[in-house]
């Protein structure tokens, strides 16, 4: 039953992505609505899948790589839809606003494909994870990662467009979206690090142990802090800022995946 909703989400993201592609290639903007519908259907199906997994497991589905990646992938389309409808979205040029949906669909497809590579077995929670902080800490962090993923994807679009259209006078609006996505991600990452520290103090008696996961999350935090300061105080825009978003997400990927497989520590479960 749960795999049905997983597959349905995958199919919906693919259909949405196809609709966006046809809308762009055939110059039929009306088809973009089908893309939005696919994105919304995929987000809803994945949400149902996570809720069912929660019910089957008897606990929040956030205890291993597969589950946490599903949460992050579920957050991406919801964030993309929210960004499209947010009040500040009016500042985006129409063609840049059109990018948010397809980026959400692409990340949805990639996220589900990656999640299927990890062990899907529902396993009991180990004692260290039996806390309400699990839900708070992991949820905040994964939604933050999803925002960073959108920022990096938009940054990649900005970089490619700048190479194709050197006089890209409308790229400024995409810069604004990258900045907004980064700020949302940065706020949530800050919340994730703080909730993790409070939980660590409650569980292990130390709010900071320079554990590899903790250290790399702080490295990621510093990278984005510097990027946001460069935007606000040094006027970084265009491809420079886009590369900062991409570099930041590289740090996110190492924090999320690299640390688990290359470095050992207290966090060696997700």
């Amino acid at each position, binding site marked *: 039953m749960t795999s049905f909703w997983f597959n349905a989400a995958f199919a919906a993201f693919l259909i949405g992505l196809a609709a966006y592609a046809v809308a762009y290639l055939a110059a039929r903007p009306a088809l973009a609505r089908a893309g939005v519908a696919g994105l919304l259907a995929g987000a809803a199906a994945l949400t149902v899948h996570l809720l069912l997994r929660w019910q089957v497991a008897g606990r929040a589905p956030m205890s291993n790589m597969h589950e946490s990646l599903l949460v992050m992938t579920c957050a991406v389309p919801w964030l993309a839809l929210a960004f499209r409808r*947010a*009040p*500040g979205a009016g*500042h985006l040029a129409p063609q840049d606003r059109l990018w948010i949906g397809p980026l959400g669909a692409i990340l949805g497809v990639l996220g589900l494909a990656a999640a299927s590579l990890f062990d899907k077995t529902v*396993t*009991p*929670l*180990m*004692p*260290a994870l*039996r*806390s309400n*902080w699990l839900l708070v800490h992991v949820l905040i962090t994964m939604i933050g990662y999803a925002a960073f993923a959108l920022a990096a994807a938009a940054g990649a679009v900005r970089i490619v467009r700048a190479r194709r259209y050197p006089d890209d006078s409308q790229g400024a609006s995409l810069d*604004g979206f990258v900045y*907004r996505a980064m*700020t*949302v991600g*940065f*706020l949530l990452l*800050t*919340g994730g690090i*703080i909730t993790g*520290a*409070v939980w660590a*103090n*409650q*569980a*292990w*008696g*130390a*709010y*900071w142990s*320079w554990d*590899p996961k903790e*250290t*790399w999350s*702080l*490295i990621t935090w*510093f*990278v984005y*802090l*510097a990027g946001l*300061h*460069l935007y606000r*105080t*040094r006027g970084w825009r265009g491809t420079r800022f886009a590369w900062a978003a991409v570099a930041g997400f590289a740090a996110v990927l190492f924090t999320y995946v690299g*640390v688990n497989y290359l*470095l050992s520590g207290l966090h060696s479960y997700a």
Partner: protein
Amino acid sequence: MRSRYPLSVAKLWRALASINLFFALAALLVAAMVAGTLIPAAGGIYKTRWFASLLAGLAVNIAVCAGTRMSRRSIGLRPGPFVAHVGMLLILGGGVVSAVWGRRGELTLRAGGSKCCVQKSSKDWHLPFHVRLDRFQIEREGTERHRLTVHHAKQGWTESAEIVPGGTVDLASRGVTIRVLRYVPDLIVDHGSGQVVSRSQEPRNPALQLEVTTSPARRRWVFAKYPGFGHEGADPIEITYEHKPAAVKQFASAVTLMDGDRVLTQERLAVNSPLTFQGITLYQSGYDPDDPSVSILQVSKDPGVPVVYAGFAGLLIGLSLVYLRPRSLA
């Protein structure tokens, strides 16, 4: 208008308030942290003086920047940056308080035993009370699993099957039937009676008593931790036993805190459920898998925690004020 400070002081002040200084310090800190995680020999980098001086430099930069760039009027109009910067200073300051005045260590207790001296602490630490472990309990969930792998040395076949205590492995096609007579989770032989008994309910030495229809010695014991033990050389049937215990759900210690013979309090502490008494916190940290009567506790007294928590609150509130204002998102 001339500054009342010498030019050199003004220049130093501007340098300390410089955003470029922040970028440089951030880059150095990131490089140090990357090295600390990726290079095994550099793992102690976080305790070095030069790393501490980088953090101190960051604190000075933040303080001078906040003090210089933010006037009372600007703080009133946009309090977010100031609150966020103060939050970061509190976090760094709380870290200093923890490093200087905080104490942490470990207590390893056996059921019935008591201690007041914390081990693995950087300084000698005698607690103002004794900690006695009354009982240590491991709670498991799910079912344990047993698997037998049967190999016939002469006929060259191998079969594997999951079994339950009291069940039967029917290898009719091979002409062999194995009945599981008894499961003992922690097998020892009682010296007095010579009987096989279980020392505890924890699977420290899981063993199965089997009856094998075609074996010369029909009954035998197989041990999960000692494959091959109990197998007679003439018997062509070799049986390997794999045991997978039920998952640990929780482990907890029932402790009594005492001042001499006077009982101060009796409490239960478990993972994620610490006990705080007289400013000292005990955490259920671990246990000895080979001896389930031994509990390992972390002990901590850290006056820096409230300062750091205040910093966390300031940072979150400040950042929310900075970034969630509609104008700042435009």
